[in-house]
């Protein structure tokens, strides 16, 4: 049983609200007195994930389980899925529409940033059905 289980619905139609869930997780981890560097890695990785769900998948769900030694973030959407995960992981590769670039995203850095800040990341995606992305951030890690 986790110390804290957080469940969020990420709205897909309102770009201005993307990041609310990550901000809330950050706030709650701070209150718990979690390792500050782990908090930052959790917030950034989850924020990029939230942005991705809004840009590509019409929103989704975010489940965050907090344990003393690790935070597990699971992002689930029912969007178009990722046809070529390996390609999507390359820096600079993006399928985001141009209007997203004018908002400061869509440069193909989202997934690489998420991999960089998490200790473990797995992507389970089926074209036409959706994507489940799991990230684990350890409280104590060499990435800190």
């Amino acid at each position, binding site marked *: 049983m986790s110390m804290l289980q957080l469940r969020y619905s990420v709205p897909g139609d309102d*770009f*201005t609200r*993307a*990041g609310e869930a*990550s*901000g809330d997780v*950050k706030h709650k981890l701070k209150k718990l007195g979690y390792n500050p560097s782990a908090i*930052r*890695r959790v*917030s*950034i990785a989850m*924020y*990029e994930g939230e*942005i991705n769900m809004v840009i590509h998948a019409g929103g989704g769900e975010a489940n965050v389980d907090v344990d003393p030694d690790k935070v597990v973030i699971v992002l689930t959407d029912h969007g178009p899925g990722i046809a070529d995960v390996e390609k999507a992981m390359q820096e600079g590769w993006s399928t985001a529409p141009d209007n997203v670039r004018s*908002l*400061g*995203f869509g*440069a193909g*850095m*989202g997934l*690489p*940033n998420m991999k*960089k*800040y998490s200790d473990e990341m797995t992507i389970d995606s089926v074209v036409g059905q959706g994507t489940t992305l799991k990230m684990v951030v350890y409280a104590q890690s060499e990435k800190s």
Partner: protein
Amino acid sequence: MKVQNIVNILKAEILAEGDLQEEVKTACGSDMMSDVLAFVKDQSVLLTGLVNPQVVRTAEMMDMHCIIFVRGKRPDETVLSLARQKDITILATPYRMFTACGLLYEKGLEGGCDVS
């Protein structure tokens, strides 16, 4: 330097006031938020020409204390109220990005990303 020094150096207008006595050491200038998120090095100031709520969210995730909108750009009330909630100072400077960054760098604010 302190946030108050930035206000003076950039002839900036304070649109949302956090802690102006906060000590800041490094800054980042970009319109691409994912580039800002790609480097975590205790950067406390963000200079940008992009004016939307995601700029404040990005600063929040990065633990930044101050956002400077360059070339006279002004955010709307949504952006300002979000910044107030998060205790982030918002400034508007008439200088363009290159000049604003240069003026701050000259006075000792660093980039925080060393090239090895």
